[in-house]
């Protein structure tokens, strides 16, 4: 792909995590599938970046690639991932292992299956703490109890010796968060941390995650398909579609003034108090499979504002106002050309 001026520039200096032109591919018998197609973004120290999109947009794949846990045959086919300016996408296994948990923590979607059923939660916490620090068994245990208390588990001295099956789903996700934060990583990748939970406790868990990460000074990459969660939690948001970033910018700006027709569609699907809508709008059609991504803008078959250029040329991210957006409706630095989306 030719370099040009409208290209996303390398993230600014001092960013905690920089992802540049990342490409994740799956070689299959019928040819190579591109799950993440040339995306770039950054996360600053202590910042919460929301990553939103439909299933299969490549959100989780991006998170997994950052922590180096892509399942073969999936592989990083191009681009760079830097943590504190140091490349981590090409590290040997053992060096990357030391970064996992120590500098980048991860929270997975399903707390019911994230914990090993045969070990007590204490064992799993202490094991993780001792892997990354020089703490003694009793120090690590002390810390594990403190962490359990911190994530809001009552009677942690007693519950530390219990097995995962003795905890409810919400409590287990709290344990998972304690595990992700137990050696104070600088970045936590939370991959749909509440999708598997009851609606009634989703908000609690998100709030807890945000509070703890800011207390521990960890930045968060919050992967979700719930725009509402992003609106409440994130500082910035990246909207993904078909393995690419459609729009990225400060969360208020993106929500109030969505520029990409896809983001606009996503916003229309959130119920809002005080709006006299008879029904929520929906985006027609569904996201293309990896095998049949259309040429040009991948959103063009579903886009209400599609025109000829969208079908042939792929738009790059360009700066428009405070956000960056990959859409032919805009030109660099220019106000929107077409009328209001509102």
């Amino acid at each position, binding site marked *: 792909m030719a370099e040009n001026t409208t290209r996303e520039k390398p993230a600014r200096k001092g960013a905690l995590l920089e992802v540049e032109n990342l490409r994740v591919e799956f070689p299959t018998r019928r040819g190579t599938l591109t799950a993440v197609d040339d995306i770039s973004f950054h996360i600053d120290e202590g910042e919460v970046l929301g990553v939103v999109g439909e299933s299969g947009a490549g959100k989780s794949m991006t998170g997994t690639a950052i*922590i180096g*846990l892509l399942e073969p045959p999936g592989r990083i086919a191009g681009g760079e991932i830097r943590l504190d300016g140091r490349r981590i996408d090409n590290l040997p296994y053992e060096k990357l*292992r*030391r*970064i*996992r*948990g*120590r500098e980048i*923590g*991860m929270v*997975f979607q*399903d707390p019911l*299956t*994230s*914990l*090993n*059923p*045969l*070990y*007590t939660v204490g064992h799993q916490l202490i*094991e*993780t703490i001792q*892997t*990354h620090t020089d703490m003694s068994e009793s120090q690590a245990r002390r810390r594990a109890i403190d962490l359990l208390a911190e994530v809001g588990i009552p009677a942690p001295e007693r*519950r530390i010796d*219990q*097995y995962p*099956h*003795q*905890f*409810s789903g919400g*409590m287990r996700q709290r344990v*998972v968060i304690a*595990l*992700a934060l137990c050696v104070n990583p600088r970045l936590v990748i939370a991959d749909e941390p509440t999708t598997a939970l009851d609606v009634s406790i989703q908000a609690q868990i998100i709030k807890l995650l945000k509070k703890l990460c800011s207390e521990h000074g960890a930045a968060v990459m919050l992967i979700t398909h719930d725009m509402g969660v992003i609106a409440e939690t994130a500082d910035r948001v990246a909207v993904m579609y078909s393995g690419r970033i459609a729009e990225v910018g400060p969360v208020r700006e993106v929500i109030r003034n969505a520029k990409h027709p896809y983001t606009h569609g996503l916003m229309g699907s959130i119920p809002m108090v005080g709006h006299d809508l008879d029904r929520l709008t929906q985006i027609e059609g569904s996201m293309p499979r990896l095998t049949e991504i259309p040429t040009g803008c991948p959103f063009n078959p579903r886009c209400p504002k599609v025109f000829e250029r969208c079908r042939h040329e792929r738009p790059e991210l360009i700066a428009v106002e405070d956000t960056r957006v990959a859409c032919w409706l805009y030109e660099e630095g220019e106000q929107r050309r077409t009328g209001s989306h509102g």
Partner: protein
Amino acid sequence: MFAFIVQRLFQAVLVMLVVGLISFALFRFTGDPVNNMLGQEATIEQRQALREKLGLNDPVPMQFFKFLVNASQGEFGLSYRVGKPVEELIATALPATLELVFVSALMALLIGVPMGVYTGLKRHAPLSRMFLTVSLVGVSLPTFVIGILMILVFGVWLGWLPTFGRQGLVDLGFWETGLLTLKGWSFLIMPAFTLALFQLTLIMRLVRAEMLEVLRTDYIKFAKARGLRNRAINYGHALKNTLVPVITIMGLQVGSLLAFSIITETVFAWPGMGRLFLDSIRFVDIPIMSCYLMLMAFFFVIINLSVDLLYYAVDPRLRAETLGGAAH
């Protein structure tokens, strides 16, 4: 936990009663033992006297009750063939078989589990492919062919190992063991390996399949994401989760080791229970056959009970009720 053991013990007693009934029925439905013992020439008075002496004139339920009482005390009467008490014959044959089965099971576990782990972790390594190919041989060749091949190679061509019998025994008073001398082991190693080979390949394939399954789970992915060392992930987190099915299969297989030992013992002229049983069948030696039946049933019951208890030890989820149930 206690209630569970009591329940299982109760079931075990029930199973033993049923097997006892079958063993007892052997006596009644396989011809008249008096004929076998006294021969064709005996007079009617002699027959009558023996019937009285053996208690064959008592009502059937009474006979069954006596049989159970005697059996529970380890008395199965006289062997028709040898004329010695059955328990004496069993006592000389049982250690040979139990040692053979014990060593086989140990071999199958100690070789099969590491091979399974290796082939599960390094799926595409040349050594893994070799293990899997060789394991096909173990699964598909019948035991007696393997035994005979081993005798040919190690006994006849190389002359390293003795080809039949059991020597180098040390008498411990209640038990004649071949495990304490090198000579004893030299006699044991070939039959034990022959017997173990099938189980070994079975366990290897089972552990491999389970490892592949477990390595795909979320908790392994999460363990990796926490940066745990590979050794801790593979052996601590993954292997332990494969143990429950391995224990199940191993429990069943120890039973079939006892059963298959008949063939192996015949090939290697191993003086164990299998040989004793085959000889007894040839002579319709009912007391020994019924004792063998009861004994095997007893072993199966014991093995199953231990398997259930091992589940408890390995999997905390089964202990849930005794720990006071899942909190909210």
